[in-house]
């Protein structure tokens, strides 16, 4: 098995085998991150550019660390998504970066489909670090890796995803990937945050938090991204916490060994109560650690592919 694609754009296109291969590769990188000297020469001499057209600190830092641990030269390029108003088109920007002999682009963009658009217009391998409401594939991979480490096989697991599904690229990537690996996924959130035409997700839609959490192996709480919405999707964070937030009482409906996940950053007291965020069932920090391993795997597989490198084996 290997990863033959030029890019990593989304989970929707990947096969179960490709997902598992990415996860297996990521698992081998976890060990490097435990060492005193956290560096391997794999991508020495390669240039990774983090092209961030939307502000991000956490994901960009995670990719930067991942690149550095593989000995790649990582460079950060930040620009506003509306830089076109300044005269340079997105593709011009990307081709400028390509002209500097880049080996991998890690791209985040505020608009759905934009990372695919970039990938179609460059020979450089592209990793999607989040495009609009569409996908955030490395987040899905780190979620899956974390679940796998805690629960073994993903197949047959009961997974609840709670929050703003409509406006969440994390939810989309997770749903596509989890369904492919055979999990049963339930969704819950205020109707203002669920897509009207929800059938393509092929998930159970829950009416209450209790129903969503009942018997779950994994409870994933999404971040309420206040900056992304108007004022019409929820009246107040207070009311959101009451009906859609995860409390101890509600978590009791889940399986005894259920884990709690969150893509971060957490709004304490809104979607997740502090005592849960800090309890031993929460795997939020392991998610972050796994994020580095997953991104190392992605950079490794794509970063060597361009020059025809052999990526059959991750060791």
């Amino acid at each position, binding site marked *: 098995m290997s990863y033959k694609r030029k890019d990593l754009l989304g989970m929707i296109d990947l096969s179960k085998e490709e997902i598992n291969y990415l996860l297996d590769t990521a698992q081998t990188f976890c060990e490097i991150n435990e060492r005193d000297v956290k560096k391997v020469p794999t991508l020495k001499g390669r240039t990774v550019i983090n092209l961030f057209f939307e502000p991000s600190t956490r994901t960009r830092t995670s990719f930067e660390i991942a690149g550095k641990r593989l000995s790649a030269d990582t460079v950060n390029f930040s620009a506003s998504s509306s830089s076109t108003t300044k005269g340079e088109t997105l593709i011009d920007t990307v081709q400028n970066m390509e002209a500097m002999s880049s080996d991998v682009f890690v791209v985040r963009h505020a608009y759905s489909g934009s990372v695919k658009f970039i990938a179609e217009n460059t020979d450089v391998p592209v990793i999607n670090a989040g495009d609009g409401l569409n996908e955030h594939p490395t987040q899905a991979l780190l979620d899956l890796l974390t679940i796998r480490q805690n629960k073994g096989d993903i197949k047959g697991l009961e997974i609840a995803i709670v929050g703003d599904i409509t406006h969440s690229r994390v939810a*989309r990537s997770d749903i596509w990937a989890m369904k492919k690996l055979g999990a049963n996924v339930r969704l819950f959130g205020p109707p203002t945050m669920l897509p009207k035409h929800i059938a393509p997700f092929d998930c159970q839609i829950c009416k209450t938090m209790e129903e969503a959490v009942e018997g779950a192996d994994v409870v994933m709480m999404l971040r309420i991204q206040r900056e992304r919405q108007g004022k019409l999707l929820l009246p107040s964070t207070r009311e959101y916490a009451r009906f859609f937030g995860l409390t101890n009482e509600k978590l009791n409906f889940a399986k005894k060994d259920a884990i709690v996940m969150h893509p971060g950053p957490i709004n304490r007291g809104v979607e997740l109560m502090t005592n849960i965020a800090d309890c031993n069932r929460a795997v939020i920090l392991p998610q972050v650690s796994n994020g580095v391993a997953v991104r190392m795997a992605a950079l490794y597989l794509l970063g060597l592919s361009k020059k025809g490198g052999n990526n059959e084996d991750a060791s």
Partner: protein
Amino acid sequence: MKTLLKNCKIVNHDKTIDGNILIDGETIADVNAPADTRADKVIDCEGKYAMPGLIDLHVHLRDPGLEYKEDIISGSKAAVAGGVTSICPMANTKPVNDNSTITKYMIDKGKELGICDIFPIGAMTKKMEGEELTEMGDMAGAGAIGFSDDGKPVCNAEVFRRAAEYASQFDSFVISHAEDKSLAGKGVINDSEVATITGLRGIPAESEEVMVARDILMSKLTGAHVHICHISTKGTLELVRWAKAQGLNVTCEVTPHHFTLNDRELLTYDTNYKMNPPLRTQEDVDAMIDGLVKGDIDCIVTDHAPHHIDEKNVEFDLAMFGITGLQTMLPLSLDLVKNGNISMNDLVRLTSYAPANLIKKGDRGEIAVGKLADIVIVDVDKEYTFDEELNTSKSTNSPFLGKTLKGAALYTIKNGNVVFEFTAK
């Protein structure tokens, strides 16, 4: 000068006859001329169809002001290459066509080239700001055939009411771009399963339907003629059917893309499928065809909306809405005939006879003695790739570019002159 079109299947809205058309000067002198009639020019049509030149009630020519996308000259050329001999440009130019000077400019520039008649649609409100009425009488006098703020809905119901009332004074009508912008929000494609899958924001069908309902009621209130632009949803069609059943003075139009393509095309994020109203579901597409079959939709229009490649080769959310259509209207409409949905006579009614009546141009829309010699000779079997060479618009934003189309205008005749001849192989 006399021209004889020999061996034509002459198609009108009500019947098809075999005959030879004799053109004398600008008008049709005979539709049953003897084959040996003397003429200055003889074209043997070899049994091909002769249709009245198409009349497109809804185009954007971008002139004045946005000539980098299209102008009246290139737009006229695109029209006749598609068999269209009369076009009605919308008012969203720069500056807006909200006064008789600009209306006159458009008509005169069209006449300079003289291959296609330009019948401008004036703005309903000054600068299309939806607040104050334009001088419709003045513009109608200069040649405007209707009034619309197309591209921008008129949000204020009273403004729409008064515009409809006032236009009726001049035997004109208003054309409604029906869209509730607050409900459409930041949407860029149809709100459907495709929006769920792609993460592209959706425009609900109801954002169109709620305004269609309002504007139908404004027709009821005023008695004035309200024409609904580019209908795209099953719900809109049902509302129009209701209005017509009530005997209200309501008409509507549909574009070829809304009866040909559905929103699954957007799964690729191709901006050449981005238009407003957006491509809808297959159920809506089927409804559009049903509306054409049953005669509830009055005419087919292109909503020809040229945009520069730099305005389309960008992030999907930032790409301009709209596609070109003048050169694809005929083949896409002929598909309805090939599929057995409508007859050639229906096609002529939808693309020529009915639009001529709507804009009150009794001198065209039929191939009959005394009518203008606006005729298109159509080869319904001609197969070709619609490529950049054939494309005569300044812009290339068509999802049909590079695709194989069937059916073409072999000759387009305007006022008795051959203004286009299909020469590609």
